[in-house]
């Protein structure tokens, strides 16, 4: 194969014109191309939502599962075949709302998975309800008097749970996004990129212009400085920092399991008759 971004782009999307999802897809295709990953060696796992349709639009293996459950099959996939590059891509509602428990506990597990969250701060597919990251005050058909709960900060949360790679990108900064994706894909362990993504159809607050005006690239002196990363991650409002706030690998889920050394489990031969020794302990 030729390692061109176009190779990965397939399908007519069901996304709205002007949506940030397009740029994210392009960045992903670019990242895959620049790493020259073969389609059959990559697995893209998603949940349900507008963002989660992405496995239909990128030519790699795809598991488009249940709403909120993208990370779980991805971990299973890493168990079965740790030679696959596994990328999880889904919406903010999917990843942090319905899937919140898997989010926090998989960070603890630290599987070698890159997790790209299309964070449009809204539930797109179900027509505009608040998501966990919606800014307070946002009015929707369900939050008729505006969002009253405090927003979930995915980056701080990931840091506190012990994630080794924590980054924020913006779909409007495509080159930066692509480069960050490349690093996340190469990172050993769980790597989160929360991607600010305008949703022109439903999010009339955090528009492309709104983000554009606020995002900046802070100087990050030591990507292993957890407190500095935490401070950065808590900035929101007039100034929204982008970048890899934290980058500090630790032992992965796969490394902690001896059975995962060598050939992927999926392709190892097996013969039931060789197991007959198992009954000896019961004799």
């Amino acid at each position, binding site marked *: 194969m030729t390692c061109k971004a176009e190779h990965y782009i397939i399908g007519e999307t069901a996304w709205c014109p002007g949506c940030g999802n397009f740029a994210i897809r392009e960045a992903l295709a670019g990242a895959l191309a620049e790493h020259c990953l073969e389609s059959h060696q990559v697995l893209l796992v998603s949940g349900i939502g507008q963002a989660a349709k992405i496995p239909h639009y990128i030519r790699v293996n795809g598991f488009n599962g249940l709403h909120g459950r993208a990370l779980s099959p991805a971990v299973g996939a890493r168990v079965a075949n740790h030679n696959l590059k596994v990328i999880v891509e889904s919406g903010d509602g999917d990843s942090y709302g319905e899937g919140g428990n*898997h989010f926090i506990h998989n960070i603890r597990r630290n599987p070698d998975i890159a997790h790209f969250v299309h964070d449009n701060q809204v539930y797109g597919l179900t027509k505009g309800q608040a998501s966990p990251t919606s800014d307070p005050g946002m009015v929707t058909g369900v939050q008729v008097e505006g969002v009253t709960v405090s927003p979930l900060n995915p980056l701080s949360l990931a840091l506190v749970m012990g994630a080794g790679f924590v980054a924020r990108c913006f779909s409007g900064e495509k080159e930066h996004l692509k480069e960050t994706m490349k690093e996340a894909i190469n990172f050993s362990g769980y790597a989160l990129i929360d991607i600010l993504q305008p949703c022109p159809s439903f999010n009339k607050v955090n528009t492309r212009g709104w983000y554009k005006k606020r995002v900046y690239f802070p100087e990050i002196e030591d990507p292993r400085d957890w407190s500095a990363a935490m401070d950065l991650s808590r900035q929101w409002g007039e100034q929204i920092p982008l970048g890899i706030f934290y980058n500090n690998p630790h032992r992965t889920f796969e490394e902690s399991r001896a059975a995962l050394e060598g050939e992927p489990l999926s392709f190892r031969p097996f013969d039931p008759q060789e197991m007959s020794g198992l009954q000896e302990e019961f004799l």
Partner: protein
Amino acid sequence: MEINILIGGAAGQGMETIMNLLGKTLVREGFGLIYTKDYMSRVRGGHNFSRLRIAPGTPWSTVESVDILVALNEETYNLHRDNLTPSGRVIYDPQLFSIPENENRGIPVELQKLAEEAGGKVMANTVAVGALLVLIGLETPTVEELLKDTFAGKEGVAGKNITALKAGYDAAARFCSACFDLPPKNEDGKKLFIDGNQVLGMAAMSSGCRFLSAYPMTPSTGIMNYLAGKSPDYPVIVEQAEDEIAAINMALGASYTGVRSMTCTSGGGFSLMVEGVSLAGMIETPIVVVVAMRPGPATGLPTRTEQADLEFILHSGHGEFPRAVLSATSHEDAFYRLNKAFELADRYQTPIFFLSDQNFADTHRSVEPYDFSRLGYNRQLAEEGSLEKPYQRYRITDNGISPRALPGQFENEVVLVDSDEHDEKGNIIEDAATRRAMVEKRMRKLDSLAEEMDEPDLYGDPHPEVLLIGWGSTYGVIREAVDALIALGTKTAMLHFSDLWPLPQKRLRSLLAEVENSYCVENNAGGQLSALIRRESGLSIGGLILKYDGRPFLSREIVEEVQDDL
């Protein structure tokens, strides 16, 4: 010609240790037995007990009457004394309570004190085993050997236990030695001493299951413990999930990517899995789900038994898709049947359920070693030569089964699965024609799946006037009820289902046409198999013999209900 032993005490007093030691010893000596547990949902205290029945052949169920009662506390004595047979004896620690001497059945053994003398309180259980042995007239060498096996490398510990054992033996010998007659030994070779969860764990291992993701839940946790115990030495990964939703979704991810995967739980945990079950049906990904039933609704009685989730499991998950439901009827059968579940999952690419319950899970029996050559490992994966390219995960075929390839298996071919309705390639569609074709493709699998189902086991009188119909773990107890009814002069047979869905109907139809009195015997309040039979065949079963108090049937109860009704 049989001996029934009951050991009772508070949770944490170590009844299990005693029973395991004694049970294994007896099996090694060649006796046939069954050992069942009745325990509370707590860690310490309360009242727990176990029954061990030693009988000719291999007994199928335990009974109420007690020949030897080991009462680790007074409550046990008070609760079970009335079930003692006239010649029954009670082993107890006189330091804890006393039994009126005129009852003349007490065998006081200072369990605690003798244990301490041997080297530590924890060995009180070993002392009790010694006492038990002498009562049934067995010498100690087999136990000594067992203790040495168990504490291999820790000779001190083994030695102290042997001292304790002998102390118990000698103390009890003063009151009675061999005062119970053991039944004849089975002379046909070595037997396994194994419980239901271990049977299933070993079957999964031997079926090539390489991933178990689960969340602890009684009475299924033993399966998890078994596989986890093997994980340092075998290529199997056991992952404790954060919840049951994760458990099934992880397993599906691993299965999609290529390994045989399983999850296990009980009713409440299964409730959280049904969305994943529906996903498995839609993405046509194999998965084996073991549900060890316990009484519901909700938390119910966590450590007790019931068969009330059959209909729930049969219809679990939104939407329509093919599935199979098998069940554990006996230790002998369950080993091969769980293998069948894995085989069916791979062949039909759909969720396969295996129903166990606390009664099966926690019961040890002595069984023939398994024949591993009977196990299948047919992954039914696509092969390079025959693969049509570009690969289509959901190719429409005559039997509804599409060639299954794994991600990464073929150069340049990708595998796409989707929970939305999709086309042959796996991409989302919305048009009516594709939807129709895909529903029909999936449902077509049911036709051949139905052919795979084993007819229910038929046992008893060839021309019965009474037919007892059951499923799952009641196999043994119904079988004993059949024997008892025949002995009482009632021509009785049993029709017992291991494979429940698609419901095999041939035997049922031919028998029901002939037999006048038919009963479904079920550990539930609704008569769920009976309803299923009516739904599928239109046939009505005459009566229901139900038990829903969390306890397994006694064969006596079945016999009495039949007699009362006739």
